[in-house]
């Protein structure tokens, strides 16, 4: 199955490990990765700041870049949710409306793609330790993806998953909010970290790099021994033992069959 990766501007510039892990994970599951070089940004920083015209130019570039893709997969719930908004923003625009609908329909957040399209929950990953999962707001509330990341993490070998108290609360990132309203954002991230402290986790896992930069940047400033990981990095933790390779082959075969089935429809 050919998958076009929308890596997001944040990962491209600041968090490439999450991008690498996404590529390796999807390849291990039998996908062929295509990376359209013309991709830039989903437009959200401008859109959320009220610069709709500027945002639309970025969005058009996204639609051009992914015009030929079958599936667009992105390791970010927030950016996926933005792309899903395109049809709404280009409604009534004869040139772009249909293109916006097409891109929105074929775009998936990574964990959503794994669970809903590839039908995989056990990706054969293993990571020993105690972890808590940060549910990002746009991924859960706007994109509506709540279960997929948890199902995947529950199947990670050796990983003890503990629920995060007040998980529904925003970490205080909010894009430009984090700098425009810095002192408020700081209080929000501090409260998030206090809850992370409560569960005594080795890892905080998330599916959105904005939140992870925010939580991770604060954890680092405070000098806390907690590792912040993108879910793609966790799912890509993989030992090379023989038994695993066989399992991988089986998963790959299953995925290929699923892919053929879906494309044939």
């Amino acid at each position, binding site marked *: 199955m050919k998958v076009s990766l929308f890596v997001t501007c944040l990962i491209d510039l600041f968090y*490439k490990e999450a991008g690498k892990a996404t590529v390796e994970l999807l390849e291990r599951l039998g996908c062929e990765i295509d990376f359209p*070089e013309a991709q*830039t940004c989903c437009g959200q920083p401008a859109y959320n700041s*009220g610069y709709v015209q500027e945002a639309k130019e970025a969005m058009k570039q996204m639609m051009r870049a992914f015009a030929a893709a079958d599936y667009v997969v992105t390791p970010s719930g927030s950016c996926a949710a933005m792309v899903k908004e395109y049809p709404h923003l280009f409604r009534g625009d004869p040139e772009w409306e249909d293109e916006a609908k097409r891109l929105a329909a074929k775009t998936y957040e990574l964990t959503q793609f794994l669970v809903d399209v590839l039908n995989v929950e056990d990706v054969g990953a293993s990571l020993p330790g105690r972890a808590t999962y940060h549910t990002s707001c746009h991924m859960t509330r706007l994109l509506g993806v709540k279960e997929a990341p948890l199902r995947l993490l529950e199947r990670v070998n050796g990983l003890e998953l503990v629920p995060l108290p007040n998980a529904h609360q925003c970490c205080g990132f*909010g894009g430009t909010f*984090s*700098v425009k309203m810095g002192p408020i954002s700081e209080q*929000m991230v501090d409260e998030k970290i206090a809850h992370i402290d409560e569960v005594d986790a080795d890892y905080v896992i998330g599916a959105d790099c904005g939140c992870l930069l925010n939580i991770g940047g604060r954890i680092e400033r405070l000098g806390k021994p907690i590792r912040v990981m993108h879910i793609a990095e966790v799912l890509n933790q993989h030992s090379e033992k023989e038994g695993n390779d066989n399992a991988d082959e089986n998963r790959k075969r299953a995925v290929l069959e699923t892919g053929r089935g879906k494309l044939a429809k």
Partner: protein
Amino acid sequence: MPMKIENGPFWKRVEENLQNNFMRGAVAGMQDRGYVRRLGVIEELGHWEEWRSLAEQIRKHTLENLDYYLMQLSENVANRGGHVFFARTAEEANDYIRRIALEKQAKKIVKSKSMVTEEINLNPVLEAIGCDVVETDLGEYILQIDDHDPPSHIVGPALHKNKEQIRDVFRRKLGYTKSSDPVELARHARETLRRDYLTADIGITGCNFAIAESGSITLVTNEGNADLVTALPKTQITVMGMERIVPTFEEMEVLVSMLTRSAVGQKLTSYITVLTGPRDEGDADGPEEFHLVIVDNGRSSILGTEFQPVLQCIRCAACVNVCPVYRHIGGHSYGSIYSGPIGAVLSPLLGGYDDYKELPYASSLCAACTEACPVKIPLHELLIKHRQIIVEQEGKAPVAEKLAMKAFRLGTASPSLYRFGTKLAPSAFAPFAEDGRIRKGPGPLKAWTESREFPAPSKERFRDWFHNRQKGGNPS
């Protein structure tokens, strides 16, 4: 109390409130307890999303046919012997009510909770003609006797005060001598207020929902104060925002259930009262004269705009109760009697951008408000619309932001410029970076690095890694 709270510029308000640990603890406790309670009654009702859709449909339908229902309401109020006054502005509403007070030679006026009378700043108008105006909702009462401390929450106005502070206010203002036990405090307030009800000439109420088909008004309280305000004085004046209307009892029942569940996590409140016109012959109590004042005060100019959904609001404060920004800065930071997400959307519409231009930005757009709203107001989207107007029409955006967004547009619309710009980023940030981290950033990064590290852009972007890997054909 007018809509605007005079307590300095936005950042001064926020910084003061961030220091107020008592207030923040009270708000966080209220939010956390309320969250669990609200989910409990939602679960118990079942099919919550369908109820929300129905409630939204009711509100939308009413707003789309508002002229019809207002006409029906006013005809039915008049048929039952009541008087209806349409006030275009706050002044018109206040003038009308003042005229009644003068005509009745009113000395004492008792009021039940009403946001709209605060919005139009009614009390000082009545006090200026010598009336003694008494707020009877316990929270409002506490604030009123404490030299008109502004409300910090649309449902629990005195949320920012603890029982010791309330005891001190009672001692100072009412000669109270007992403890800070809430039962004793409440008893004292009840005894004091009872005398006021019995001697009041006029009772003034707000209105949760007016029912067009019957000309009735609905009042929802947990204290029963609205019932005394409407049962004892000879004259009753009800003041409502022009959008607070439902077609029939059937829709009222749905919305009351959504209101009480969303506002306080209760199936029903202790008192839900429906009143129709003045007292009939043979009625044991009720006013001899009933006036309904329907207030526009800027609402009709929201109708028909992209902000129309804000008029769906039933003032339950569910959005306030889940807002992580409100949680830390509290209600007074908003500088408006309408605080939290609904306040951030409504205050600039009713009070203008000059006073409220920061409020649309006081949100991380986490959409907790939109998710909680029982009538499906897309609150976070309306905040983005405000930002758009501030940028495009009001010209109030900072110059540096405008430049940054111009650069964003150039860089993201052109893949070659994007590649070029992002290639340069590591050298541009190099002077600020140390071990791949920026600890004291320039420009907008400065605010970030006040409290957080920021990763320096690495020399190898993801796309470079991917490109090299494909060229080498060597997965690493």
